């Protein structure tokens, strides 16, 4: 009802809600109310949310005192430049025809084009690339077509590009405005003066826009990847710069190693070691950047506790890892029998502790990657089982996997905690399932190998 006030329609509060309520029950019957059924059906058979016209108004009778006739009368249009006289039906009230201009004349708007005189042209607007005739023609077309440059370019006699035409037009306008202004201060706010048209920029912009619009999905994805990579590189470079400024050794290997990584296509099948190594070094270079910035901030403090420093370094080192990974690192530390917080935190102990944490992190990352490669490899194997050309690859990968196959920590655990060969035997059974019977006998030997290493090393 307030909307009606705003619209300026007369209030007729009661009929509307009643009508709305009565409409649903009368659904199958006469739905329209005040307008014919066919007209109502044009709306899709549904009532509008807010009826534009009160339907009772349609049935309203005109006031009795007014005598309405319709007459075929001539009219003129002030928007026309000639004096054409046309005829149309006019609603005459009590014998008095309506006054006023043709009701649609007000919609005839046009752009105000600058009009220069010949002297002005001679003085300010001379340009080697443009003759006066061309410039005049340009301005005439601008006037006719209201600065629709695409159309103007089409109609232009010589083949000029849209950017050239725009450039000429805007520079002429600018020159005129500057010349006619009494003082520069008056026109400094004028957009023509403040931001002159830049042809080369416009050409470049349009070219770039068309390139972006015509990109394929594949291209889009690649661009996103490269941008993300670049962001990471700049971030690590920033961290390295901060460290450099506080006189600490800069991990300058961050740049070239990241570039190496970017050059590897993400989704082709490459040997596992090749991809693992750069990502491991990426992780380490990112870590050194983090470490460097933490060290720098520690130096800023005039005094600090060794335990506090260790906490900060540990946080910095695990900043790239998620919460779950951090929990796993702590779990590993406990399994190894190391205190989560060193009992005797001297400088060397803290350094060793930090290095241990980092190595565990690297280890966990390697394991995860191995798992992924396993998953990829197994799906590969499944679909190309009968395919002979791929068999050599398969057996090769199988060989690799035999040596390095460690899902979870179980293999490592058997090495560290010293669980007997039974456990490794269980692993064997699981690996037999995909059908590599030939590899089974070799595994016990392999499980013994790391143990031997351990004894001799210590």
């Amino acid at each position, binding site marked *: 009802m307030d909307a009606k006030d705003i619209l300026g329609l007369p209030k007729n509060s009661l009929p509307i809600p009643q009508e709305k309520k009565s409409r649903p029950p009368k659904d199958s019957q006469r739905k329209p109310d005040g307008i014919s059924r066919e007209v109502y059906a044009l709306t899709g058979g549904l009532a509008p949310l807010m009826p534009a016209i009160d339907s009772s108004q349609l049935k309203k009778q005109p006031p009795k005192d007014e005598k309405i006739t319709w007459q075929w009368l001539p009219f003129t249009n002030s928007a026309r430049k000639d004096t054409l006289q046309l005829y149309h039906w006019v609603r005459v009230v009590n014998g008095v025809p309506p006054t006023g201009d043709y009701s649609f004349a007000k919609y005839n708007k046009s752009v105000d084009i600058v009009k220069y005189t010949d002297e002005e042209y001679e003085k300010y607007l001379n340009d080697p690339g443009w003759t006066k005739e061309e410039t005049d023609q340009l301005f005439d077309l601008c006037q006719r077509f209201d600065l629709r440059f695409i159309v103007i370019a089409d109609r232009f006699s010589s083949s000029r590009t849209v950017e050239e035409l725009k450039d000429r037009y805007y520079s002429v306008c600018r020159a005129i405005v500057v010349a006619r202004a009494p003082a520069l201060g008056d026109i400094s706010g004028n957009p023509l003066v403040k931001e002159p048209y830049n042809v080369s920029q416009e050409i470049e912009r349009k070219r770039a826009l068309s390139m972006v619009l015509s990109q394929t999905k594949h291209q889009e994805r690649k661009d996103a990847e490269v941008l993300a990579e670049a962001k990471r590189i700049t971030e690590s470079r920033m961290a390295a710069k901060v460290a450099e400024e506080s*006189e600490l050794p800069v991990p300058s290997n961050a740049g070239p190693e990241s570039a190496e990584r970017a050059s590897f296509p993400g989704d082709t099948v490459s040997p596992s070691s090749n991809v693992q190594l750069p990502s491991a070094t990426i992780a380490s270079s990112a870590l050194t950047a983090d470490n460097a910035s933490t060290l720098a901030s520690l130096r800023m*403090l005039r005094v600090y*506790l060794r*335990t506090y420093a260790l906490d900060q370094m540990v946080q910095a080192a695990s900043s790239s890892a998620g919460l779950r990974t951090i929990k796993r690192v702590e779990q590993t530390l406990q399994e190894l029998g190391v205190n989560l917080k060193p009992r005797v935190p001297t400088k060397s102990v803290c350094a060793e502790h930090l290095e*241990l944490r980092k190595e565990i992190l*690297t*280890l966990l990352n390697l394991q995860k990657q191995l798992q992924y490669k396993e998953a990829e490899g197994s799906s590969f194997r499944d679909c190309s089982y009968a395919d002979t050309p791929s068999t050599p690859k398969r057996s090769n990968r199988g060989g690799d996997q035999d040596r*390095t196959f460690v899902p979870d920590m179980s293999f490592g655990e058997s*090495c*560290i905690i010293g669980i007997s060969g039974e456990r490794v035997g269980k692993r064997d059974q699981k690996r037999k399932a995909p059908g590599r019977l030939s590899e089974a006998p070799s595994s016990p030997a392999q499980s013994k190998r790391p143990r031997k290493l351990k004894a001799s090393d210590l």
Partner: protein
Amino acid sequence: MNNSSSSKKHSPDQPETSGPTFKSQRTKMDTEKKILNKKLKDVEISCPIVYGSMAFWLGKKASEYQSHKWTVYVRGAMNEDLGVVVKRVVFQLHSSFNSPTRVLESPPFEVSEAGWGEFEIAITLYFHSDVCDKPVNLYHHLKLYPEDESGPMSTKKPVVLETYDEIVFPEPSEGFLARVQNHPAVTLPRLPIGFTLPPPVPVEDASRRKRGDTKDHPLSQWFMNFSEADELLQLAAARQQVSMSASLKS
């Protein structure tokens, strides 16, 4: 990073001959103040400390509000005199104690009290002006009852809870460095080449030196031993295992 000797005893051939007195140090500083106040980079001084508490059950003499007699303290890790570094220690006890803020202006930095409850004690270390103008806060939970609750409580054997930590001064002033360069309470890294310090002030009064350290402290028999060697071995072994597993995977 810096090199630092891992052993606590810095100069084995100078057993406790250093420990400069404050009087002579002060006059020396007045004359060479500008040079000595200069901050040194790449030289890090660390002071290993142990802080904690020791609580004795009073047994038959225990009352409802005083069941234990305890001492909270800060000492050098090897029982050296912390007075060269620390100017003042403030212990903030539980508000139920009389004047709960206890200030100690000289070593030994400790507070002994009798009570019944366990609470957290805030310990603030203030350093000498040439060392650092910012204090360091430590927090210690006073432990009165032993881990093994079912075991008999003894009036002879205290419940000890100590924490080892090191106070690190990343950019010490030259004056500080000169003053403590041979003192066993601090650990210095190897000084950069071409770096010369003014010679340490020789100790004049041997008897004054002894006062600050806790080597002959009555409770010293209960002090815990903090040896970094064990922890280092443990860490080294762990690292080796981890690197082996990692090499197996790559």
